[in-house]
């Protein structure tokens, strides 16, 4: 758009809004900036992002490591088993902040502000998901660093190590869309934090994240084995320990990531259009 200067304006600014697809990226990038710049100013997010994963790694390695480590196959250390699993768990829990953030923006009228501006409709949603994906990547990197302190190593080399981080963050990205839908549906941050959180406990604990599936009761094993969290954790383990995936483990994870995004992405977008 072109502006006309009002009588008392001290400057005349000529500017033009980008259009179409460019506008979507332009506006999404600015909304992403807004969310990222808040990150260090939000103590609870710093807690989720940095302190919680460090604490979990240390607690599990030194408190449960001894007993659980004995049920692992010989030659596999608990640190090696734990880090990929806890990376999935931490990232999945980290996505619950997506629902809190969106509910907060709705409640405080920020979504109204954005929607009354002549900008891409998608900016609030894409900015939130993009910023959260960056945050989840930071979580993954922190976990690798802590992992190296407690004995975790990328035995298959750094390329596959990087692939592991990308896989974990991609799963988080997919989960963020579910969280976006929850946040836009419940609309207040307190409810969003509960609604986004509770179901993550069974999801992440009935999985191979902390303990091997064969150590669970028989009736629980099929559920745990087919849990996308288990599938993702197992894939990450292969990438970290062996390097190249052993085969058959990549496709299910990719299908889950694509499937979740394909179902919940459009649902979140259509919910956003109607709020």
């Amino acid at each position, binding site marked *: *758009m072109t*502006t*006309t*200067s*009002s*009588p*008392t*304006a*001290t*400057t005349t*600014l000529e*500017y*033009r*809004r*980008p259009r179409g697809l460019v506008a979507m990226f332009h*506006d999404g990038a*600015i909304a992403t*900036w*807004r969310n990222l*710049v*808040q990150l260090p*100013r*939000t103590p609870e997010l710093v807690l989720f992002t940095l302190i919680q994963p460090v604490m979990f790694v240390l607690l599990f390695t030194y408190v449960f490591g001894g007993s659980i480590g004995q049920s692992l196959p010989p030659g596999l250390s608990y640190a090696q088993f734990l880090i990929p699993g806890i990376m999935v768990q931490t990232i999945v829990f980290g996505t619950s902040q997506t629902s809190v953030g969106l509910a907060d923006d*709705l*409640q*405080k*009228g*920020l979504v*109204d*502000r*954005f*929607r*009354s*501006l*002549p*900008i891409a409709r998608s*900016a609030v949603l894409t900015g939130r998901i993009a910023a959260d994906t960056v945050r989840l990547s930071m979580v993954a990197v922190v976990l690798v660093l802590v992992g190296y302190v407690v004995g975790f190593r990328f035995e298959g080399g750094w390329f596959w190590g990087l692939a592991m981080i990308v896989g974990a963050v991609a799963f988080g990205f997919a989960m963020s869309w579910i969280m976006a839908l929850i946040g836009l549906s419940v*609309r*207040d941050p307190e409810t969003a934090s509960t609604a986004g959180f509770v179901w993550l406990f069974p999801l992440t604990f009935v999985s191979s994240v902390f303990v091997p599936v064969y150590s669970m009761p028989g009736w629980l094993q099929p559920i745990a084995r087919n849990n996308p969290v288990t599938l993702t954790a197992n894939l990450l383990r292969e990438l970290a320990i062996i390097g190249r995936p052993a085969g058959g483990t990549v496709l299910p994870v990719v299908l889950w990531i694509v499937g979740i995004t394909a179902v919940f992405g459009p649902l979140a977008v259509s919910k956003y259009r109607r*709020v």
Partner: protein
Amino acid sequence: MANPIIEVEDLHKRFGQTQALAGVSLSVEPGTVLGLLGPNGAGKTTTVRVLATLLKPDSGRATVAGYDVLTQADEVRTVIGLTGQYAAVDEKLTGHENLWMVGRLLGMNKAQAHQRADELLERFRLSDAGDRQVRTYSGGMRRRVDLAVSLVGRPSVLFLDEPTTGLDPVSRFEMWDVTRELLADGTTVLLTTQYLEEADELADRIVVIDKGAVIAEGTADELKDRTGGRTLEVTLRHAADVDAALAAITPSVGAEAVRVDRELHQLSVPVEQDTRRAAGIVAQLTDAGIEIDDFSLQRPSLDDVFVALTGHVADDGSDETDDAASGSGRRYRGPLPGGTDELLEHEKEPKR
């Protein structure tokens, strides 16, 4: 007269059981302030949300600067600014960052956006606070930064949705000053308010709505005239004369009609629109040898007007009804900074 810059025709909107808008029609001339006055739940916010393209009406038509809010929403958004009842700025960004972000979103380059942000901070006396996060601001500062954010793109039409609800009197007067400056710029303003005094102070024309429908329209003076009654107020020099004064005028006006304030030695007599009658009463008093300090013909306050029009007192009470009616249950309802704001929100503005 120029073409109206805002035109609203027969808007209807229902939320569940609540008929929020039941046929609102209004128009605003360019460069003027329309005060949309009504109690909570009257449909003020719903009307603004329709005009700001945030809400689709069930039926009816609305244009802003010639653009249809339904079919040309993007064009409407390029000419409007919106300042909500609760400051819709990002608390965790600084004042400068909030302004800069909106400038960038509107297509300014980084330098232009910084320049515009500095300009607005200075204009709204926020330069010193510009680099502090908004969450550290007082209630009044938040409203000002919110207003500043809505002006980044130099809108020709500004919606001020209850700009001073919940503010202490000092912050309220500051907002009024700022609003008057905007008018000097030629910006058209649609102001919603439940404060009669605010509409009286700022608006060129007033539309009174209640239960989703327009019940009266006109200038503040026209509305006051419409309730008819003017009152003659006479202040006597000596308190001792009060009884003599009553004796002098009761034969012509009747004893019940006269209100007496012995402390201020003041008599009030309703005279409708009849100025000759008022003059006659003053003459009767002077003829009786009573010394008069002052006399004046009082118009009814907008409070009186409101009671006359709606049959109930303008209600400054809880926000719940307005929120329910506007369907925006997501509005910020937490404590505002400054602590006392919430208490003040429920306090009636003292009449001046």
